[in-house]
């Protein structure tokens, strides 16, 4: 004996399937609109610092401010006194620079908001990437065209592995590492760089221990 008529059963089946589909579509849509796992792409900063102006217009080298990028895991954030090398003379009374002058006066550091954030169990080292021909632009994008700094890469493990699994297309000659506008060299140059820069094997580059400890 049937409890439900065949039509009712069919209706229930369709309804159940529709439910599953709706949940999936809804969740997928929501996932797309959720904040990126790495946090805000372009958070507000205490001073609306423009890389476009400093790098693009003025042509200041990355390393003037990010002083430890070639020596340390940490690229370095300029001390107030570095900003003041110019801003003790230029834009000395611009209202947007009030926090900077306050910092220089009191000795209290500025508190910027981190844009590129990695989880605590990831140990990224700037110096080795720069030494091995990975240009700033590979991960940070054309900061010389960013009035306000924003994150262009997801910084997810998958994204890191994309390069670690096939580093060649991301390499450039060491002289062009800090040149944001220089185009990527051709594949033959990159293959040569794999040898001259002694890039480690893909097996080594994709070992968990390369980034996690």
């Amino acid at each position, binding site marked *: 004996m049937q409890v439900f008529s065949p039509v009712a059963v069919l209706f229930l089946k369709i309804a159940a399937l529709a439910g599953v*589909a709706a949940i*999936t579509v809804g*969740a*997928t849509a*929501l*996932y797309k609109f*959720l*904040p990126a*796992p*790495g*946090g*805000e792409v372009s*958070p507000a900063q205490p001073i609306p610092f423009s890389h476009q102006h400093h790098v693009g217009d003025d042509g200041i080298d990355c390393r003037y401010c990010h002083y*430890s990028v070639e*020596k*340390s*895991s*940490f690229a*370095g*954030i*300029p*001390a*107030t*006194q*570095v900003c003041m090398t110019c801003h003790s003379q230029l834009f000395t009374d611009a209202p947007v620079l009030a926090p900077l002058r306050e*910092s*220089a006066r*009191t*000795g*209290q*550091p*500025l*508190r*910027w*908001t*981190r844009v590129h*954030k990695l989880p*605590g*169990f990831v*140990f990224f*080292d700037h*110096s*080795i990437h720069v*030494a*091995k021909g990975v240009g700033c632009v590979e991960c940070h994008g054309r900061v010389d065209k960013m009035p306000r700094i924003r994150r262009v890469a997801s910084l997810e493990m998958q994204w890191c592995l994309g390069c670690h699994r096939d580093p060649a297309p991301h390499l450039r000659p060491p002289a062009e590492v800090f040149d944001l506008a220089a185009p990527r060299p051709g594949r033959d140059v990159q293959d040569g760089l794999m040898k001259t*820069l*002694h890039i*480690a*094997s893909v*097996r*080594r580059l994709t*070992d*968990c*221990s*390369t980034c*996690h*400890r």
Partner: protein
Amino acid sequence: MKLSRRDFLKLSAASAALASAGCSAPREPIVPYAMQPEMTLPGVPRFYASAASFVGAAEGVLVESNTGRPTKVEGNAAHPGSLGATSVHGQASVLQLWDPERSQAPRRMRQPAAREQFESELNEALVRLEARRGAGLRVLTPTVVSPTLQSQLVELAARLPEARVHRWDPLNRDATHEGARLAFGRALEPIYRLEDSRAVLSLDCRFMEDEPGRLNYIRQYARSRSPKPQSMGRLYVLESAPSLAGAMADHCYAMPLAEIERWLLAFANAPAADRTMRAIADDLKKNRGLILAGEGLSPWAHALVYRLNHELGAPVALIDPIDPYPQPHAQSISDLAQAMHAGEVELLVIVEGNPGYDAPADLDFAAGLARVPLSVHLSLYDDETSARCTWHLPATHYLEHWSDARAFDGTAAIVQPLIAPLYGGVSPHEIVSLLLRRPQSGYESVRGRWKAIDWEAALRKGVVENTAFPPVKAALRTVALPTPKEPAAWSVRLVPDSSVLDGRFANNAWLQELPRPDTKITWGNAALISADSARQLEVESGDVLEINTHGATIHVPACVVPGHPEKSVTIALGYGRARAGRVGNGAGCDAYPLRLSDSLWSADATSIHKTGSRQALATTQNHARMEGRGHAKHIALADLIGQARAFEDETPEHSLYPAWPYDSYRWAMSINLNTCVGCNACTIACQAENNIPTVGKDEVIAGREMHWIRVDRYFEDRRTLFMPVPCMHCENAPCEYVCPVGAPVHDSEGLNLQVYNRCVGTRFCSQNCPYKVRRFNFLQYSKDDEPLKAQKNPEVTVRMRGVMEKCTYCLQRITRARIEADKENRRMRDGEVVTACQAACPAGAIVFGDLADEQSQVALAKRSPLKYDLLAELNTRPRTSYEGRVVNPNPELDNG
């Protein structure tokens, strides 16, 4: 619709994120300097040379600073008191710096008070006392190893001739110095050259744990053990309490102190009468023998040993004591106590130390202190003494102040601060300068003392060149020898604890949880007793004993230790603290009530019996299950000669698992059991380096301690054998096969590693590990407490509850060396990666390196005839291997 596992997880994560209502990652500030100090490079640690003093002399240290935070202590190879190694106390001292329970403010009558008020009160009293040329002013310090503080105290005595400076250090050198006074007419300190002797006789000398030259002596001992028939040394030990030297001895005889003194008398008078004595005497005569005497022996015994060494032409130099104080400490503090009881002391300034807790019991120091109208205690903690003083002042830690310190041989080193005082503490130099009424910073005092030297060079190198004391020529006098006293029915031997020393490190969780070398007890002490004596008293380990001496009674759990002298119990000092802090309070039992000023290291027991109650001992090695399986291998020197392999290789030839291809570095470690003395420096160095949490007494009892390298201890063949066990980094690792989520991984260089983020806590890996080196975070052991988190190594992940962890061969150090080498497009060189355990080891027993490099130290060690793998028959192919111990018994003697 096909949903892959990865997509499914993404969707789950998305719904979870939805549930937390639109949260995004928290904003994280990034804070640069306002004014950048010169030479700073965030992300690159800097090392500063300094010196730390724990057992009456300095050990040179290089302190790692991560953006201004001292995080780790390494040894200074240029310093004679370190030779590159560190003691367990050196390693743990960085935790003491960050201890949240350090005293943080001056206190008057236990209430917070202002420093200005202290200074005005002190000045008022000083004005009054100065009118009387200082009569009524007393200063009490522990052993003063700082030449600057010594000269400040001399200046004080000159300014106020009626004032008196006293010494009390529970780990004093009274017997050694008084013995020299008998033998030579002046206090002298012997400096041993163990490596120049091929036959050393130690008479209860704890030269590997408590002597000022301990790290140097361990290194020398290790050098003398090279297993070659023409050069290998021999060590005879007579000991009244288990010691590292006793464990390492070729011949060890356990007997109470009084028996050792009787033995020595007989040995000096008629060595031919007894077979053992004759054999030892012959060996000493033939092989440039050297006799060491321990602090427990009477001054006359020391005097006798000085004479015997002279007759033997022993390699021992005599120097002036590094703290030239003319009186024995016991005498000095007795004088002070007497004066306090007589009401003659108006102002007492106690510069560090904790006499309210550790002064000899017969002096009733605490009651005397109550009669002093103005008493001041400068110390790191608001402790037992502080509570009884009018004023307590927080002291600066050695990583916070300027000072200087002498090594055991007199070599001076400048103590430089790594960080500004966390709690506005006062340094000993500053308080003495207040007494001199010429307030000065510690820097000014120290700089003033060392005007003539190259200051920068001394700071950089960590030693002041050419400051070792020259050897003294002293003529021997005739010493009247006493008739030795009859030993008591039962005696109690008091020893400094290997972890907390005299009690000053009681609030240090790393040291409390560090298994004591001989017993593997943590978080407390016990009455060590031999198996026969225990049977006689009908006690087992954990049974509480009541011990009565003349005038004191204590209760302490027994712990049966094979090889302990009969009719004697050994109790470590430094426990049962009342005001140590949350970590140290109530740990263990206080043995100081048994300690009298005329007998600092032993007490005659009037009775010892079982109380019927029991107390759990938190031991980390349930050794009964492993004993007798020959894990710690040893061989006699005579059997080794001519052997290509000392121990049979039990590794099966074939394996079911395919071999891993290794095309680059192959990291490996070799641990030399022949030189390892079991001091535990590796364990605690690893703890400091790798952010390893402590778990507490109850968790240790549950078997949940977290040490990544442990030191196993076996009692086999009438020997004590030590065996450090880190992860073996097996090539066929049993842990890797059983994990359902693939958390243990094998990297391309042979490291066996744990991916914390994958680990779900099944613990299958630990279950399948035959070496039991994996550690599980059963609870959230790593706390994020201020200011303790400042000690954490920024290069190592802090693990959370529910994940498995283990030794990584100091992956962060390999990575740092790799990055530096890669930047220069070269291979890492041998010796470029030094693991934390290797760096700390005073014996140099651990070598680490690349097996692919045939010339590397580790490859060399693996070709040694003494090499063997632990549990090789399981075919795990461990990368960590051992060199077995070689014993060198005297063929004339049967015990060995």
